[in-house]
């Protein structure tokens, strides 16, 4: 609604889920945050770089690689550090306040 009114701009919004989606396809524009028992486990999205492969970012602070996801009042995610695909389309991007920032690496 806000987006339609031009007040809110985003490429991704957070949707909270309790279980990892497995091979379920994640709709473009959604970042599924897997939180179970209060533990943030995964952030899952379809690759925005064109290949559409499912990306699962580990939020486990004990493992590498690992990411952190915050969200603002409008459920727009900020993911850090950046996300770099090594195989498929090899894209590299940031997600800041729901927006994709492309990096040309």
């Amino acid at each position, binding site marked *: 609604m806000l987006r339609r009114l031009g007040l809110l701009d985003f490429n991704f919004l957070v949707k909270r889920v309790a*279980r990892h989606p497995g091979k379920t396809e994640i709709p473009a524009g959604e970042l599924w945050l897997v939180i179970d028992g209060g533990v943030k*486990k*995964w952030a899952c999205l379809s690759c925005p770089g064109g290949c559409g492969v499912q990306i699962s970012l580990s939020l486990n602070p004990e493992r*590498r690689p690992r990411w952190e996801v915050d969200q603002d009042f409008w459920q727009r995610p900020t993911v850090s550090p*950046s996300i*770099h*695909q090594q195989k498929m389309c090899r894209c*590299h991007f940031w997600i800041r306040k729901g927006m994709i920032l492309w990096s040309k*690496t």
Partner: protein
Amino acid sequence: MQTQNPGDDSHIPLEDVSAAIREGRSLRLAHLYRIMVADEQLNERNLDLGDPVPTGRQILQAAGVRPVADYSIYAILPSGEFEDLRLDETYDLRERGAERFVIFQTDRAFKFTIDDRQMEWGKPSISGKILKTLAGVPTDTYDVYLEVRGGGQDVLIRDADLIDLSKPGIERFITLIRDTTEGLAALPEADLRYLDSHGFAVEVVGDGTHTGVVLKQMQLPQGKFNHPAADVLVILPPGYPDVAPDMFFCDPWLTLVSAGRYPTCADQPHAFMGRNWQRWSRHNTNWRPGVDGLHTMIKRIEHALAEAK
């Protein structure tokens, strides 16, 4: 089966098969060979065998299970695969690279899902490698995780790790392609906040060794240069932000409108990420680790551009 000669001095008392595998050497002649045997709960214990080429039956007997015919024994290969040992089949410890065995009664089925496909497994333990094989994914480019419900991180299962399927909560496995890495330049949060709040359009670039931050189309002092705006590159040194970035770089190259030439100390080229940059030699001696960051650097760049002669 081999005959042994206990009086032969060329035999050492005990050869640890796992140590030999770890050290990548072949087994030495010994009076006893130590292997690891796990039960159905995957409790492991050492077992010392007199024969380096035992049969399945010999290992079961040495493990003390009765009656032997009700039990099965599998060798766990270094790859994580299981190899079934028949009771009267010999197994050459000297050749196989396996030092772990698992013993269990076989007439049970264990149910779980991998990638939401139902699976049944006739053994209570399963390795990461077998899970991947069952899921039909390449073992070298995928990871398999055990889902943990209700407040724990999902557990990465390496190829040779063994999971006890008889435990409660062992129900769902997922495989994930190992394809995503953290980007090269994990810019400090303070820098990201600054760039965000000051409306800079930024590109983070890297050539594998150096990481660069490109400030896109930075506005230049009005009327001063031959272009109204330019891309400005800052190269982050290893150790940034505790270590200061040094010079900065512009593309397109800037000349002073008033003098019709390049500014002082800004006439050398620098190639980075396929672009030919104009190097501005402006050194930084007052960097404060933990305080300064891109905001400091951008202030310095703005100052240098304003003062350029």
